[in-house]
């Protein structure tokens, strides 16, 4: 049988999955998968100890000491202890022979040393027990410190990611704003010339989270007009001819004022009577930042940038499913 290669020239599963994953990474701002996040959320604190430079056996060591040590074997020792025996007759014989033993050694010194040792043992045990009672407190303190350090570390990481994400969003918004302003300027100055509609057919199709971009984007359609969603920044790179055009500030202000006047509260241009169904930038303005159409190419009757407010500016996309 033939092998299982059934390849199309235009689509490839792994390639598209790669694009999807890249896009997700960019969106999320950190290279964690959902499974990794779940794991991090459920992991026990002890797992962090190594990574935070704390001795990995610390917790175990503390736990071990939490078991109270038994009291050492106690004993009584007097001068007679050396001669004691459970058998009375033997005890008597030893006492009779004691004077003879004293000729060879001094048992009184042995007795005295053992008595002192007994007292030392008792004192040591008292102190040791006191120390053991303090250990759980130390454990709690160290545990809480590690907990706080770990939390702070995670918070710092999260904050770093948020700052990074906000920074990239801000950057994107700035570029988008500049692009749109430049577009308005350029379209305003081009109003005197007849518009050249861009190619309509999607010759090269690229899957994207933002607008579905067609070849027309690079020619007839302004790239800044389709930039939308957190990932569409690639569609409006800086220095790609989208910087604001030089123009008279008075004209620009006038146009802006006019546009604002026409946008009454609760109403936008696309919802105004006479707004076109396929407006410039229609691909970029769904609530989720996703284009629903291949609408990167402006409608031919709206190619001049629709700055007059009567033709919409693409703030409301058209749902092509219906």
């Amino acid at each position, binding site marked *: *049988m*033939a*092998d*299982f*290669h*059934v*390849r*199309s020239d*235009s*689509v*490839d*599963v*792994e390639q*598209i*999955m790669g694009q*999807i*994953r890249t*896009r*997700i990474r960019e*969106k*999320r701002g950190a290279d964690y*998968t*959902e*499974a990794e996040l779940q794991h991090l959320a459920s992991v026990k604190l002890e797992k962090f100890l190594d990574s935070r430079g704390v001795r990995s056996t610390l917790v175990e060591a503390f736990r071990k000491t939490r078991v109270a040590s038994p009291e050492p074997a106690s004993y009584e020792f007097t001068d007679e202890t050396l001669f004691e025996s459970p058998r009375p007759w033997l005890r008597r014989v030893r006492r009779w022979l004691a004077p003879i033993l004293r000729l060879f050694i001094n048992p009184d010194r042995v007795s005295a040393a053992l008595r002192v040792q007994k007292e030392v043992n008792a004192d040591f045990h008292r102190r040791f027990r006191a120390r053991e009672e303090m250990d759980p407190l130390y454990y709690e303190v160290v545990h809480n410190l590690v907990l706080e350090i770990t939390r702070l570390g995670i918070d710092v990481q999260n904050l770093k990611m948020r700052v990074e994400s906000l920074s990239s969003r801000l950057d994107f918004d700035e570029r988008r704003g500049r692009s749109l302003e430049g577009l308005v300027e350029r379209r305003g100055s081009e109003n005197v010339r007849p518009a050249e509609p861009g190619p309509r057919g*999607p010759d090269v*199709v*690229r*899957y994207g*989270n933002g607008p*579905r971009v067609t070849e027309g984007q690079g020619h007839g359609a302004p790239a800044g007009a389709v930039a939308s969603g957190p990932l569409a920044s690639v569609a409006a790179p800086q220095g790609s001819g989208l910087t604001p055009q030089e123009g008279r500030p008075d004209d620009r202000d006038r146009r802006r004022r006019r546009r604002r006047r026409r946008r009454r509260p609760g109403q936008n241009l696309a919802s105004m009577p006479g707004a076109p169904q396929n407006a410039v930038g229609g691909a970029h303005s*769904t*609530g*989720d930042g*996703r284009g*629903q*159409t*291949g609408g990167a190419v402006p409608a031919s009757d709206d190619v001049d940038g629709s700055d007059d407010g009567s033709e919409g500016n693409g703030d409301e996309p058209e*749902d*092509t*499913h*219906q």
Partner: protein
Amino acid sequence: MKLAVVVQRYGADINGGAELHARYIAERMARHAEVEVLTTCARDYITWKNEWPAGEERINGVRVRRFAVSKPRDPRDFGLRSQVVFDRPHSVADELAWLESEGPTSPDLVRHVARTEAEVDFFVFFSYRYYHSWHGIRAVPGKAVLVPTAERDPAAGVSIFGPVFRGARALMFNSFEERALIEGVSGRTGPGVVVGVGSEVPDQPQPGRFRRKFDVKRPFAIYVGRIDENKGCRELFDYFGRYAAMNPRGLDLVLVGSKVLDVPSHPRIRYVGFLPDEDKFDAIAASDVLVMPSRYESLSMVALEAWALGRPVLANGHCDVLRGQVIRGNGGLYYESFEEFAEALYALEGAGPIGGPFGRNGREFFRRHYAWPVIERKYLDMFDRLKREPASGRIDPIPGWMARRRRDCRPAAAVVGAVKAGPVVH
């Protein structure tokens, strides 16, 4: 040529994967050989209770011989034994007791298989994990052809199945991943081929008819199958709810099949119930994409049907088989997290640029590998090959009384876990 198809349940109204697969194969092979189906009187796969009378009948022109199940399954006992065999070191005796508990215990069926060995050219056993296959293959190893329908679950690692995998004359796999799993756990090197199963897909489905009949106006993704947590439906509902919140103008979700799990009340989730084949194919043809959320599949027939109808498939990437099929067929995408689900579903919308090409690739993939003439040819070629090659007819014996009780079998889950996972991509 005389063939006997041996399967745990059989009936025109049984839509379980392996059983439907067996019926399709029996009915198709009946065009080339004399086919008899040997099965039990059970209809319910949980209890194996005898619900059909023992004896002979004909279903769609195929003779079916039923044998009684000697004892129904006790699900609690089976669950406890499964824990022992799957998760703890155990003995061969434990595994044999587990198999007995799993059922369907039908000694009459096994005796009939052994008795008719001389009259039948080949016995085609379906589903390795059940009583009838294990005992049946041991009774007639020289004529046994096994369609394992194995998923990546711990049962594949139970040690008593190793000799059966190695001893059967040939294995007809559903996927390359299944083949890799079985060869990994058993060390089998004998004849085997990746076949799968075909489907009777109409040439001209009527998507408009489905939309009119069920008043479906918006574009939608479709799920076809049992609506069950084990099939990944709970995760699907969760993911789709989040996707719908993010994409107010995105796809709806239409569910087709019998309902075990409650369908959440959601304005964009529509349950249309169990549908006859005609409506089912119309529904798939009307959809933008078929979603397969199951993590455990040996072969997804409904995915093949979607491809046959030119629709892309969005599969759960945690299922090696589905993921491998999607990659090999280049007929859809897969997901392993919600983010991937949402992005992939968006990418596969009918209005998008890639749903169409994926659907066309899928149709071509189905035509080349899962059309019925291709499937039938693979079976017939295998039977011809087995006839030409001498059969050893040997199978490893069951260990002796003492050896059976030695607790030296590894947990089955660990055995399966040690086998390399992932899709097989050529």
